[in-house]
């Protein structure tokens, strides 16, 4: 277990930001933290990164309670990006790496590795304010991973990046994960979660309202929707047995009562000689799950 959050509570004055949240994260996972603005994601992240301390509850990092040197094992890229504008790139990366516990020699080695990897070695002497926003974010990313953290926490990492740089960073994240680094993504962009995460936690109003493996959750929330693509018209008598939800051009969406009926539908269509170009189960998007779950928790 890389991270264990146990019954954590955080209040700011009278405001209850985090309300008895618990979650466990296995090593090597890519964990998605979802939730609307003001849900408590950032407050929770700040407790994990030791920026603030919980009012009650405990957080364990790699089996140990959080302590003064825990930040050296965590890399955190906050949503509010920021670097010292007037400092030079090389100097700043060195400073930030040393604050994470690296020696000067180690830091220089890592900086060289990353600048070479991104092909930006000539940026060493450039002031951060002279770089474009996208370039600054690359530097910020490097600063986050420079000290080879065990746990990487990325808050909205792709905001403001163009498609090329987004792909670049995604690839880097995948590589880091492949090398054993555990990753937490915090975002309200659900489609990113579906692409990259294997586990998620859904936070709403300071509470953990949904938590588990992505595929398991999707299965739990699926509605037995099946989509068929065919150039041929649908037989009229189909709707007696199978509920047709939508028909757009060549795409027909059916809601079946249980998953075994999908084979029956397929058999029937084949019998009728319908040409099938695509047949797939439509799993719910996290957007849909999210909305449903929030409604459930607010009602219940």
């Amino acid at each position, binding site marked *: 277990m890389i991270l264990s959050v146990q019954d954590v509570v955080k209040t700011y004055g009278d405001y209850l930001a985090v309300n008895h949240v618990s979650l466990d994260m296995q090593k090597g996972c890519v964990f998605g933290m979802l939730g609307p603005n003001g849900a408590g994601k950032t407050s929770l992240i700040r407790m994990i990164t030791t920026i603030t301390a919980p009012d009650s509850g405990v957080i364990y990092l790699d089996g140990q309670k959080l302590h003064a040197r825990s*930040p050296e094992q965590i890399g955190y890229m906050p949503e509010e990006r*920021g670097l010292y504008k007037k400092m030079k790139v090389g100097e700043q990366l060195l400073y930030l790496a040393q604050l994470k516990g690296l020696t000067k020699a180690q830091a220089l080695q890592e900086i060289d590795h990353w600048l070479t990897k991104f092909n930006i070695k000539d940026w060493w002497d450039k002031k951060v304010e002279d770089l474009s926003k996208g370039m600054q974010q690359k530097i910020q990313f490097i600063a986050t991973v420079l000290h080879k953290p065990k746990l990487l926490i990325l808050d909205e990492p792709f905001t403001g990046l163009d498609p090329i740089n987004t792909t670049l960073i995604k690839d880097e994240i995948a590589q880091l994960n492949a090398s054993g680094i555990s990753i937490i993504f915090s975002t309200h962009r659900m489609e990113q979660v579906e692409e990259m995460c294997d586990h998620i936690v859904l936070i709403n109003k300071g509470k953990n309202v949904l938590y588990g493996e992505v595929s398991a959750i999707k299965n739990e929330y699926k509605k037995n929707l099946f989509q068929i693509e065919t150039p041929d018209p649908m037989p009229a008598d189909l709707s007696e047995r199978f509920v047709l939800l939508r028909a757009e051009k060549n795409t027909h969406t059916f809601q079946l009562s249980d998953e075994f009926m999908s084979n029956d539908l397929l058999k029937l269509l084949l019998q009728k000689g319908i040409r099938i170009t695509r047949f797939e189960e439509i799993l719910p998007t996290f957007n849909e799950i999210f909305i449903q779950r929030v409604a459930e928790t607010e009602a219940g």
Partner: protein
Amino acid sequence: MSKLSLIIRREYITRVRKKSFIIGTLLAPVGLLVYMLVIIGLSSYQGGDEIKVAVLDEARMVNPLPDEQGVRFIPSGSKTLEQLKTEVTEKKLNGVLRIPALGNFKQKEHTIFYYSDDKLAPEKSKLIEKRIAQKIREFKMDSLQMDAAQLKLLESDVSIDPEGIKSEQDGQSKYTAGVGLAVGGIMTFLLFFMVLMYGQMVMKSVMEEKTNRIVEVMMSSVRPFDLMMGKIIGAGLVGLTQVVAWVVLSGAVSFLVPLVMGFNAPSMQDSMAAAGDANVDPAMIQDTGMRIMAELSNQNWPLLIGAFIVYFLGGYFIYASMFAAVGSAMGDDLGEGQALTLPATLPLILAFYIVSMAGWRNPDSGLMVFSSIFPLFSPIAMPFRLAFNPPWWQVALSLALVVASAVFFVWLAGRIYRVGILMYGKKVTLKEMWKWTFYKG
């Protein structure tokens, strides 16, 4: 290297490398250098530009006149005024000085005539007038058969020697008060200026971090308290560096320039005096100068310097931490948050005002005693009073309170800072800031 040291180092190097710091540090010594060169230049210039003046002493009152600086007096001998004027035209002389006989001994005003087409420089003119007046005085004394020695007895030089009733005040002279004021005044001004300037530097640095949004990245690596202390200590070291540089460079300039230019202190004093007022006797200046030097060396320098350092550190930590707390609440809210800076700047300005208005009149007044003990004012007020030997118990109490207050304010600021730096968008009031001290960590 510990994280705190890394932060201090970064804060220090970033500021010391700035052009504004380098220029500001060099400004004082360069200014002093220019001033000294001008003074020396002026005096050398005077020395080189000598004029030859023939003295037509019609009543034989003044000749022979000794040469002055820049003026060679040549007795006219048997030559007439017209002959002398011709010599001026032929450039053999610069001018002719005609001294008519005294019409009336009792008359104070006496006119002498200078014939030349070149304008006589004001300081040479004054010099000549002074020398002639002196000579005429001697002539009158001789004519009236007055005893020069007896006349000198009439002069008295009065000076007040302060004597204590309860305490020993031996060794004091009329210069004590003046020198005390000067020393105290300089320390007060320096402290006020340094604390205000470097305190505000801390505030701006804190605000910059909020505006840059780097705060959260920093917070995930270091404790807020360490970041705040790193800034305060770093900026303080920059301030000390600047003061030390000023003292060393200015001292070097004062010592080397006269050496290089082949000048010695007394004659430079003369030229500085001549530049000011030719009526002042250089001998008197030397005497006063030496008395002042003696008075300065009488000052209890170890105590003064030690106290200066303690009050600078104490006052700086009190105010810099207040500025850090205010800066953390303001962030990018530059315009509207100005009111928040008042609790930090007002006491400092008030202290300076009290010392400059009331302190110099009476260093031991009730107001000054209070101000030198109350910890928000004492870093400015007590160093001033130290030049006047205040009671030791007041000094001890003041020092203890300053140190305790510094610790308290640093702690308080730390509590406010750790909440403030992560707070964005909300308009902050002092009441809000006070609440933050009670937020859990």
